[in-house]
């Protein structure tokens, strides 16, 4: 099962001495959750000074594998060796001591403390009366300079941009002498410019002999940054390719087990304005999180793409459209009528279908069944309720209908929805939102964390809705997705919207500038 390619040295193994020694060896890692095999006999080696990309659909087992590596889970079978010595399973401390550092997708930083405090936290003995931060500060400055990770050590985390916070996470790992760095979806929160900077840093790190595992589902990034790609599919190692000798189409096919065709988008003429926001502002904490006099028109048969770095007000805008956020000023007009009462119920009643950003916290009720979840937006309709009594037979039938029509893999309508994978959960949410044929659709990060197969499925469904005349607002951090689907693109930065541009009018770089637009001022 040892499948590492001895041939063809990685293209970016520039210097760093003997690059061909394995620093990490996973042998036959198997992990089961009940009947589900999350990792099935996975073996690979990571070489010194190498960047491996771990590519795979959601539920393919990437995160499980990394959690085993980092000691959060214990493998049922198989062993991990770091630098030739077996790694004690189930102990994150052992992983840290062996020189493995992990940068999680969601940062683990204390907002009210400074950079240096965050980094030194946990490395200092507890019984010492106070932190000796001078030495730590000097070391952090040195590391910053070496690897282009510029950040003020005495700034509090709260004052930093998302990109800077990620640098702190990487510094934290380096401070603990990490020789192997695991990055979990590191670009999800970055602007294109910040992503470029991150890739520059990664090149410096491998040049110094560090090894990197880069987890991603974005093919373009995997192609740009990695030496070797491991593709996981359904818990198995579906393939291993030297990046330079492979192509995007091949990798995508490996991921889903079939060729992926991006959906053809037929040009449509936008119809009547179905939803108009006029000079809408919202309250709330944080300057980036609220809307500042936003005007936006969604037209029938048109997908409007909203691009932006996360945390710039997209959530507030999504909240306004979904009915969960009430504007402090401005007006909402739906199909020509200004709404007076605004709530999630009102939004649903006026024909807005909503796909929320966070399917676990907002989209579903984890401890309730699939049937109970799919009726949550319609349970009061005569279809499901009579005289205050719920018709569970109708609810289960509806759930089975969605399971069938939306190709959801789930044991039964009675299964707790928590036990479903992210992709299947999203398909259920999609079915729930699209079943009443809404004329306006809010799709907030509809494909985040989904595999290529599920992504193209969601895209197809959204395009179908567009063809039947729905007005769609697509909010995504994935610029490629926005550019592939949207008829018009608007960019949000610090709570304000740029003017709309038609399909193909602006390049990625131009959109990236708009996304970063006001951020430059804030950081200065």
């Amino acid at each position: 099962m040892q499948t590492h390619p001895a041939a063809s040295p990685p293209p970016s193994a520039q210097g760093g001495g003997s690059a061909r020694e394995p620093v990490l060896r996973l042998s036959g890692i198997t992990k089961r959750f009940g009947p589900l095999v999350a990792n099935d006999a996975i073996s690979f080696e990571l070489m010194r000074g190498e960047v491996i990309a771990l590519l795979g659909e959601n539920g393919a087992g990437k995160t499980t594998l990394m959690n085993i590596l980092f000691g959060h889970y214990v493998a049922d079978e198989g062993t991990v060796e770091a630098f030739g010595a077996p790694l004690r399973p189930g102990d994150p401390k052992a992983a840290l001591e062996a020189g493995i550092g992990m940068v999680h997708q969601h940062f683990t930083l204390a907002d009210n403390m400074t950079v240096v405090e965050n980094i030194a936290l946990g490395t200092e003995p507890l019984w010492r009366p106070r932190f000796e931060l001078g030495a730590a500060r000097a070391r952090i400055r040195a590391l910053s300079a070496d690897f282009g990770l510029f950040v003020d050590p005495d700034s509090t985390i709260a004052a930093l941009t998302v990109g800077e916070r990620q640098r702190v996470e990487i510094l934290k790992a380096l401070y603990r002498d990490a020789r192997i760095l695991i990055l979990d979806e590191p670009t999800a929160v970055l602007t294109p410019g910040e992503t470029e900077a991150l890739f520059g840093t990664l090149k410096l790190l491998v040049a110094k002999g560090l090894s990197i595992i880069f987890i991603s589902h974005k093919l373009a990034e995997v192609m740009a940054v990695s030496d070797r790609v491991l593709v996981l599919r359904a818990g198995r190692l579906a393939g291993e390719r030297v990046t330079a000798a492979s192509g995007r189409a091949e990798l995508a096919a490996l991921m889903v087990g079939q060729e992926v065709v991006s959906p053809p988008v037929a040009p449509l003429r936008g119809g009547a304005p179905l939803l108009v926001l006029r000079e809408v502002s919202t309250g709330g904490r944080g300057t980036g999180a609220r809307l500042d006099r936003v005007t936006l028109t969604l037209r029938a048969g048109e997908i409007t793409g909203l691009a932006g770095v996360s945390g710039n007000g997209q959530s507030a805008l999504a909240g306004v459209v979904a009915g969960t956020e009430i504007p402090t000023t401005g007006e909402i007009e739906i199909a020509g009528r200004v709404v007076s009462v605004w709530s999630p119920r009102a939004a649903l009643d006026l024909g807005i279908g909503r796909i929320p950003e966070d399917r676990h916290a907002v989209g579903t009720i984890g401890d309730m069944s699939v049937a109970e979840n799919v009726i949550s937006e319609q349970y009061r309709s005569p279809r499901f309720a009579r005289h205050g009594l719920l018709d569970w037979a109708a609810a289960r039938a509806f759930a089975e209908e969605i399971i069938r029509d939306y190709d959801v893999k789930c044991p039964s309508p009675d299964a707790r929805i928590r036990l479903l994978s992210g992709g299947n959960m999203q398909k259920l949410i999609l079915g729930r939102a699209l079943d009443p044929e809404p004329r306006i659709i809010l799709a907030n990060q509809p494909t985040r964390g989904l595999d290529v197969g599920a992504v193209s499925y969601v895209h197809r469904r959204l395009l179908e809705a567009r063809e039947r005349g729905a007005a769609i607002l697509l909010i995504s951090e994935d610029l490629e997705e926005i550019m592939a689907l949207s008829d018009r693109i608007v960019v949000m930065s610090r709570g304000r919207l740029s003017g709309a541009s038609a399909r193909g009018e602006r390049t990625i770089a131009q959109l990236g500038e708009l996304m970063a637009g006001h951020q430059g001022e804030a950081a200065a």
Partner: protein
Amino acid sequence: MRLEPKPAPPLAILLLYPLGAIVATLVFVSFLVLAAGASPFSVIWLVARGAAGSQFAALETLTRATPLIFTGLAVAVAFRAKLWNIGAEAQLYAGGIVTVVLGTGALPLPQPVLLPVIAIAAMAAGALLLLGPALLKTRFGVDEVVTTLLLNFVVLLFVSMLLEGPLKDPTGLGWPQSSKVVADAQLPRIVTGKRLHYGFVLALAAAVATWVVMKKTVLGYEMRAVGHNPQAARFAGIPVDTVLLKTALLSGGLAALAGFSEVAGLKGNLTLDLSPGYGYSGIVVAMLAMLNPLGVVAAAIFVAGIFVGADAMSRSAGVPSYIADVVVATALLTMVTAILLSRYRVRWR
């Protein structure tokens, strides 16, 4: 050690978890009994016999279980919607006050009309008492644990004031007690000459009705959705605040029925010891029942049996009857553990 979620086991297996919890409780308590110098087996036997070994014992257990069923249901309903009603004790007394006020001759109605009228009025009083904390929670975010808990003391002092003043029994030789309710305002006894009364039947009916509400109705669905994930419930258009207020009304009403049933069925009058903490024990009962309304009946009978049995046991074995409190407390802990184990798998490293 870590926990991993697992699919729910079938019902037959699920029922083994509470049984396991009870066995574990008996094992733990056996050590205490040994320390007290008695044989665990004989003590368990004596408790069981004291709780169910004779017609008298069994009826006494059911009598004691009656208020616990009501308060257990009140807590189960509220906790299901994550409305932390710690004030069932106060709502019980509110029901008792109304029963005494209306039942001592104020309403000249025949028994078949009078009893339902009093019961409904009692429920309304308990419901309104919990509505206040619920409104404070939904409007201003005031923690209902604090407000409902403190209201218990407020209401008890209020009862004390009533019993020293307007409701004081003129023939009571100065004791802080109210007059007895009239005969038509009394719940009949199920077995002549024994203490078990029709309040127990009412409690069973309330349990079934609550079960139907939770499982079959729109309101029950809303309550469970709000309890499991208020954010998702709100997003889906479920009126979270309204649901919490309705939950408060239902929960407060159920707890007040305990007071109605104790006064109209058993005591006949209102005293400061109408409840030896039934409101608090209701929390234990609801947790033992895993918040299932039908399970509340079984849990209430179990808890009542422990208390009744322990009284009998302490007389013959010389082990203090406080052991009953230890048993119930331990059962709560083992039960919470059992619930956890029924949903999660424990991995040791």
